[in-house]
């Protein structure tokens, strides 16, 4: 109890509250700028958190992430450009509504459902993460090998259009993660005697390059005309600019159902907010009294996709806090920020840093409340923000990305890495190879390799050889759970394929 109170106090100091506010404002604005995704915005901020006090930097980052998630739905609604793939489902109804002059109404609906979905999943995170972490404390190297291996498999098979591309992306990330000194023998690996590579590839340059620079390169290849600003008309009638109580009441069951679905999906590594948004959208359409309105500007459609994709943001921290495994790229970025501050997330964090964990929980809830109030301000501002010309925006993004990468280690090599990874990410995008599995593979390889090698070492000294892993109850239970989950995923993939063929 004492830890909880101290945690809440830590997250509600004036400095932390101001940090959350600044993070939210910056996140909402950056998220609302076409082409700047939520992950990209957070990736740009992560290096700076190193220079801030942990309890200013981390709440700012959490605020920024939540703000940019809502901000990214604004571009989806107003200019049919989802800030993140997760907001793609919001386009389906948000954009038609905006074209009718009801852009403000659509954005307000998105704001209310986003905040509700976010809060719902944060509450679930608070209750589930500690419980799962207490189970994870019984895990040894074999269980961790299985868990990380399974997460890599899930992420690779569920991101992108084909399994082999996801797998190849994971393998590529794992190989990049092996550059540097071997963790056991300290022998240089894949460095070609290049001293700067012996330190290993930095997470931050890789994240900034793959997320921000590659996206900027992709956007800049567009014809000159497309890089100019866009315009949209907003209705002046009051009814078109508010969400009435009746409208909210009629969508509330959809919001609750979609938040639950999003939370469940977010807790599984690799599934992510895009799948949650589309599943919730499909389910809302299936169970709606007016399914014919979907795709033509239905508030229910916006509520479903927004509450589900935001619900993922809290619950995808469950595997991160409980097992130290980031469920998606957003969690990976937050993990990076914690690592910068010297805090390694995982089951022991509940024992070693309980105050910090409760402070995170408190910061998440506070950020949701602030998001609701600030969101209204953003909606008024967004008419101007969405018109920033891309031809000025993206060169600026590249310069800020370079400065951010340099800031962390003071190394020119990191700036060069940012652009190399930017080009790599761009080529991968062009080949339709997802980049997220590569980043997760890069992050998870040290845990996976270390535990795999220890497991094999333990097996070598055991009578049953490697088969000893099946004598461990925790391993067997985990193995069964993962087998059933894999079957479920395969079945869902098959269904999706059939649906695509039918369509």
């Amino acid at each position, binding site marked *: 109890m004492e830890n909880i109170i101290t945690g809440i106090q830590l997250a509600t100091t004036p400095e932390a509250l101001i940090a959350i506010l600044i993070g939210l404002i910056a996140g909402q604005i950056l998220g609302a700028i076409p082409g700047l995704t939520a992950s990209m915005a957070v990736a740009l901020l992560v290096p*700076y958190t190193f*220079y801030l006090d942990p309890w200013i930097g981390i709440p700012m980052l959490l605020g920024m992430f939540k703000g940019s998630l809502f901000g990214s739905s604004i571009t989806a609604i107003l200019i049919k450009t989802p800030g993140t793939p997760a907001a793609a489902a919001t386009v389906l109804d948000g954009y038609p509504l905006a074209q009718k002059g009801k852009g403000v109404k659509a954005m307000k609906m998105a704001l209310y459902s986003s905040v509700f979905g976010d809060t719902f999943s944060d509450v679930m995170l608070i209750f589930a993460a500690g419980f799962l972490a207490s189970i994870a404390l019984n895990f040894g190297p074999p269980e961790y090998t299985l868990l990380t291996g399974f997460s890599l498999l899930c992420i690779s098979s569920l991101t992108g259009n084909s399994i*082999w591309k996801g*797998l*190849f992306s994971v*393998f*590529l990330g*794992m*190989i990049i993660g*092996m550059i540097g000194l*071997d963790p*056991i*023998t300290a*022998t*240089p*690996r*894949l*460095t*070609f005697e290049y001293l700067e590579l012996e330190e290993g590839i930095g997470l931050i340059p890789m994240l900034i390059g793959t997320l921000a*620079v590659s996206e900027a*390169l992709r956007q*800049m*290849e*567009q*014809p*000159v*005309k497309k*890089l*100019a600003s866009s315009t949209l008309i907003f209705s002046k009638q009051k009814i078109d600019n508010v969400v009435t109580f009746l409208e909210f009441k009629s969508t509330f069951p959809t919001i609750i159902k979609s938040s639950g679905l999003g939370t469940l999906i977010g807790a599984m590594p690799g599934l992510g907010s895009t799948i949650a948004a589309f599943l919730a959208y499909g389910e809302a359409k299936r169970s709606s009294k007016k399914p014919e309105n979907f795709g033509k500007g239905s508030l229910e459609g916006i509520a479903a996709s927004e509450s589900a994709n935001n619900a993922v943001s809290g619950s995808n921290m469950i595997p991160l806090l409980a097992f130290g495994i980031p469920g998606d790229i957003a969690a990976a970025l937050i993990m990076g920020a914690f690592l910068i501050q010297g805090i390694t997330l995982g089951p022991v964090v509940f024992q070693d840093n309980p105050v910090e964990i409760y402070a995170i929980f408190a910061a998440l809830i506070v950020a949701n409340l602030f998001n609701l109030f600030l969101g209204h301000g953003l909606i008024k501002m967004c008419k101007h923000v969405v018109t920033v*010309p*891309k*031809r*000025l925006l*993206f*060169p*600026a993004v*590249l*310069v*800020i990305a*370079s*400065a951010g990468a*340099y*800031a962390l280690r003071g190394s*020119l090599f990191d*700036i*060069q890495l*940012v*652009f190399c990874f*930017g*080009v790599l990410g*761009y080529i991968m995008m062009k*080949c339709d190879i997802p980049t997220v599995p590569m980043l997760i593979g890069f992050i998870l*390889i040290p845990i996976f390799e270390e535990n*795999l*090698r*220890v497991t*094999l*070492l333990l097996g*070598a*000294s055991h009578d049953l050889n490697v088969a000893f892993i099946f004598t461990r109850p925790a391993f067997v239970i985990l193995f069964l759970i993962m087998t059933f989950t894999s079957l479920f995923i395969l079945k869902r993939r098959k269904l999706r394929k059939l649906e695509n063929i039918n369509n």
Partner: protein
Amino acid sequence: MIINKNFHEKSLILILLSITLFFIFWIIPESIEDPENFGLQDGLNPSFAPYLVGFFAFFTLVFEYVKNHIFNPKARFASEKISFSKEFFYRSIKIIFVCLIYSFFLIETLGFYLASLIFITLLSFFLGEKRILILFFFPILLMTVVFVSFELGFNIFLPEGIILPQLSSIF
């Protein structure tokens, strides 16, 4: 230019397969020196994990190729086409070239601020910004914001470059 998606996928797999084989048979042996008499009882060789990942990548690609391009060559993407724009391609090549010059050469020689001023002006102009005032003031404004937030706010000193310190020492 229109490309058949089947052909595109097939070529991609073959290119990646060549890279994977190059990684397994040249990069790993050339860049990792395993300690002598080091084996399973000591915690496995440093090259164990790279080989493991390399072979997994190899088998994934071979499996995909055999399954979809040898046993079932016409079923997937048979009618799908990919449009490839030469204009986009040349444009992106130019942008990437400018970015690489900026990161590998300009920052090191001219310093971060001067290099970035030139970079933003050139790139914005290339992307279609023709207003002279914007081209002049926008980079200066951005650099001022970067300077204030980095050097004054966080005490982070961005690279000075080689030329400017030498010039200042001369004068």
